[in-house]
């Protein structure tokens, strides 16, 4: 079974290991410590308790052929999603569809709501006091803000990598294995660590020093270590919030190459201030502008060659924002 179908089965609740099922649970929300960018990877604690409950149905009816089903190309869909921090609106009603196993870039000036939108996808905004979310954020058709969705289980399926590399003060191996262990995943840890480090294009550089501290690595290596940690539990979606903004050009290039490779197996949503980076690595680009408004969402080529909205043209050519 390949990685994709394996993950699909997990979501459908058909995989053999119930511990891997991101099911609906009454698990307590993440601790306050997890609200910190530096400490919250894709997974926190929480153990699923019912393998028959399915978080999200991965299939949709085509309706035109007597009810056969196909995999939807859209994996994440927002419907009039809006966010307030207290009385302040951070994100205006936003509707967009994020395709599966593609890189979707979110660009826009500071304070435009792009990170807010990203954090809605795996409910990281739950951890912010005074944050209210309205509308729907559907992951494989299921609104992740429904009461029966466990955010911890959700974050197991939708991982996250942050702007600043944030390895734990542990060994390289322990960093990668952390997500597996806290989730009590019954897997061969050594094999899973190697697999994740290889996928993160870091294995060759660290295979002889797995017991060294993750903090001893360079900035670029630390960020790839964090990516390895994010993908070790084999999520479906990886959210990245300016993953290369703290890196030098060489490390940035490696992370960009890695993002492209990851998109073969994962859906990647990346927030970036670097428009050329968005142009280089993404298939789709969403442009948010001041006030939390999604102004345009289209193929990246269209956005950067012939945007529809004059405000987008002005923004990406540096005349505005």
């Amino acid at each position, binding site marked *: 079974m390949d990685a994709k179908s394996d993950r699909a089965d997990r979501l459908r609740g058909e995989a053999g290991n119930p511990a891997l099922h991101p099911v609906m649970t009454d698990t307590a929300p993440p601790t306050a410590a997890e609200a910190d960018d530096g400490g919250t990877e894709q997974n926190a604690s929480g153990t699923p308790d019912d393998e028959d409950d399915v978080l999200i149905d991965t299939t949709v009816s085509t309706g035109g052929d007597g009810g056969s089903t196909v995999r939807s190309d859209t994996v994440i869909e927002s419907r009039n999603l809006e966010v307030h921090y207290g009385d302040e609106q951070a994100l205006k009603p936003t509707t967009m569809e994020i395709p599966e196993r593609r890189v979707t870039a979110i660009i826009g000036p500071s304070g435009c709501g792009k990170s807010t939108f990203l954090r809605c996808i795996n409910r990281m905004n739950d951890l912010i006091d005074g944050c209210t979310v309205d509308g729907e954020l559907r992951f494989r058709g299921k609104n992740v803000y429904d009461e029966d969705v466990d955010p911890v289980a959700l974050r197991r399926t939708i991982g996250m990598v942050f702007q600043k590399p944030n390895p734990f003060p542990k060994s390289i191996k322990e960093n990668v294995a952390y997500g597996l262990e806290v989730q009590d995943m019954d897997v061969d840890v050594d094999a899973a660590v190697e697999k994740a480090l290889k996928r993160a294009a870091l294995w060759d550089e660290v295979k002889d020093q797995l017991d060294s501290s993750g903090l001893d690595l360079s900035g670029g290596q630390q960020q790839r270590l964090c990516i390895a940690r994010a993908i070790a539990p084999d999520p479906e979606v990886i959210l990245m919030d300016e993953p290369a903004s703290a890196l030098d050009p060489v490390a940035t290039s490696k992370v960009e190459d890695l993002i492209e490779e990851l998109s073969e197996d994962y859906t990647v949503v990346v927030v970036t201030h670097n428009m*050329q980076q968005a*142009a280089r690595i993404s298939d789709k680009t969403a442009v948010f502008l001041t006030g939390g408004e999604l102004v345009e969402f289209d193929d990246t080529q269209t956005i*950067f*060659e*012939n945007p529809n909205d004059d405000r987008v043209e002005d923004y*990406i*050519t*540096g*005349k505005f924002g």
Partner: protein
Amino acid sequence: MARESYQEKLDDLRDDVLYMSELVLERLRDGLDALDRKDEELARTVIEGDHEINQLYLDLEQDCIDLLALQQPVAGDLRFIASSFKVITDLERIGDLATNLAGYAEDADQDRYPDVDVQSLGDAVIAMVEDAMMAYAEEDTDACFDISDRDDEIDELCERASQTVVRDLIEREVGPDPPQSEIEAIMQDVSRLLLTIRDLERVGDHAVNISARTLYMVESDDELIY
């Protein structure tokens, strides 16, 4: 500050492309005048001045490369630079065609085929280039389509002119035993005139290319490119 400098560079590129077009059009007119008057001195000026156009082309090409490499333009700016990059190539080729016309001037014999009005044809294609560059300067997409339509007429005129020359050659009576020198003179006149017609037709084609790139530059519409 950096963005102001970038915008200035874009404005400079536009101005320089328009300056290059004025230079090329001047050489094209001079080439035609030299041909019309068999003015060897003017022809020499056109031929020797071609290096100036070539150098300007290389300079502007470098400007485009610098803008692409250093400013990483997108959207309208990208289309403007990419289109300008192509337009200067067309202008450089028109400059080469002007030197061709000048090169025919010394030996041209306009009297042998009075029915072929090279000057009118030349005026028509010069007007096309002028209008194409005006469309580029003013981002006039209607003019782009108009120029494309006019090129069809030019093609037809050129074909008719070529047929006139060939038909005359076939029907010409040179007697049973014409001197070799007369045969060679006729052949050179014919091939020179046919080349002149072909060169003018190509000037029209370059005007259409400029229009096509202008349309793409303004509206991201590649209809005239293909």
